[in-house]
């Protein structure tokens, strides 16, 4: 049921297949291509589209994770790109590869697309690697790793008085609990409520449980315009809206307790046009989920991160697309009619993408 505010798109586009690896602390056995092949094959097979008929392919990954220049070119080996295919890459999370593919379909150039993403962040030190995404003149030389920056954000949120450390711990506990029903999750189990706050800080005010694990993995998704989706898929999951917005690169120029880019992206994607049953939020650190929930104005009965979210598995460059994929799984399983998926990029929720998904 679309209101007048619903985004108006040229073409209706649906997710017709999703696949992912189980997320693990360290994938030592397989290289990126070996990790990707079964995932891509599974997504393509589920889609019902012959590989050669998929009009466009877009990947998301980072050479800084692989520690290798042009690593994304090597990943094309997993595709069987012969005869030559139309292919692109974003040095970002796969959620943005999906956005590019969705745009490509909107232009009418193609009717379907495969997006995939991968990361073996365990080969490096991911928190340190992320320093290199910062402004190289004034901020990166100070060496603020990803956990330290998230701790500054956490401190700002606690100081705002909106939330306490108990609220943060509850986010962590719920995430791990939810992850128990996700066979692909990495960190699962029960965190005992009261005792959590007594644990030592990893970087004050963040405890280890407030932070994501280091994870390796890959994911792939196939999307198609309505005419193709209807032909090959019995239950397409519609992308009702998708939008992404960005804030200043310099974290010091922002109020870290707010995320206006998330709010705006959600508005543009038409998130408030209908009831949201499930929200998959890409919040690698506990305070970030609370910030996102506020900006998205999610009702109290919305199920948050039934997959366990990025606190249960955080494969860099994959965890954002995985939120979209996990949201489609909730819809496909009949546990949700309409879902919101969110992906983030950059330090402290700098850039945010919101995707609204709905069953027929």
């Amino acid at each position: 049921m679309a209101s007048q505010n619903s985004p108006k798109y040229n073409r209706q586009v649906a997710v017709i297949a999703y696949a992912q690896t189980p997320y693990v602390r360290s994938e030592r056995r397989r290289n990126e291509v070996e990790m990707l092949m079964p995932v891509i094959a599974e997504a393509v097979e589920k889609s019902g589209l012959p590989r050669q008929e998929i009009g466009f392919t877009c990947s998301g990954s980072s050479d800084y994770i692989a520690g290798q220049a042009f690593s994304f070119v090597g990943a094309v080996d997993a595709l069987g790109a012969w005869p030559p295919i139309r292919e692109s890459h974003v040095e970002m999370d796969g959620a943005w590869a999906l956005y590019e593919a969705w745009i490509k379909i909107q232009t009418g150039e193609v009717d379907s697309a495969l997006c995939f993403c991968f990361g073996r962040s365990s080969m490096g030190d991911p928190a340190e690697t992320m320093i290199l995404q910062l402004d190289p003149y004034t901020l990166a030389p100070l060496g603020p790793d990803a956990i330290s920056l998230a701790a500054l954000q956490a401190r700002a949120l606690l100081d705002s008085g909106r939330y306490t450390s108990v609220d943060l711990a509850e986010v962590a506990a719920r995430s791990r609990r939810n992850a128990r029903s996700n066979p692909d999750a990495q960190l699962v189990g029960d965190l005992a409520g009261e005792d959590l706050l007594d644990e030592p800080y990893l970087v004050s005010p963040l405890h280890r449980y407030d932070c994501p694990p280091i994870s390796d993995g890959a994911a792939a998704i196939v999307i198609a315009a309505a005419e193709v989706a209807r032909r090959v898929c019995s239950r397409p999951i519609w992308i009702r809206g998708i939008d992404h917005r960005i804030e200043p690169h310099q974290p010091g120029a922002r109020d870290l307790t707010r995320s206006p880019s998330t709010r705006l992206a959600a508005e543009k994607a038409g998130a408030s046009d209908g009831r949201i049953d499930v929200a998959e939020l890409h919040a690698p650190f506990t305070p970030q989920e609370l910030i996102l929930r506020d900006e998205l104005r999610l009702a109290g009965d919305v199920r948050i991160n039934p997959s366990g979210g990025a606190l249960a598995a955080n494969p860099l460059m994959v965890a954002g697309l995985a939120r979209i994929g996990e949201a489609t799984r909730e819809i496909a399983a009949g546990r949700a009619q309409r879902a919101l998926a969110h992906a983030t990029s950059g330090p402290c929720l700098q850039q945010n993408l919101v995707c609204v998904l709905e069953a027929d």
Partner: protein
Amino acid sequence: MADESAIQSIVTPVRMEYTFTPGAASQRFLLGLAAGKLMGQRCPECRKVYVPPRGACPRCGVATRDEVEVADRGTVTTFCIVRVPSENIDLELPYTAAQILLDGADIPFFALIQECPWDQVRMGMRVEAVWRPEAEWGPTFENIRHFRPTGEPDVPFERFQQHL
């Protein structure tokens, strides 16, 4: 106060460390090298043999699992004369870097040609690997010092033009 106009540039050293793991196919290739063998993998669909293998046939997009040992000799498909010094290459300039199609393989790989004047290297030239002494072998391509001409007759262009 410092004179701000005096700051022309800043140096911000970056160092990142990785624990690289090569994956299944590359690991078999590297272990083969340690045993003095060049191991490729054959695509189950198009039958092409890849050396070094990455575990996939880039043409068909399927896993390659059949191990195939290829010869340590082959044919120069193309080459270039290097006249620019490089920090990590201790060779007399100019020298020749070539794409070599090993006998039994379907993709050429990159190696140095030595024991031959640089201006006599040519497409179709037959070459063989010169290995280091066995006691120095490890899981590394450095086991092969370089390639040198075998003296066999050149291979006609038509026989390797599909492998350039």
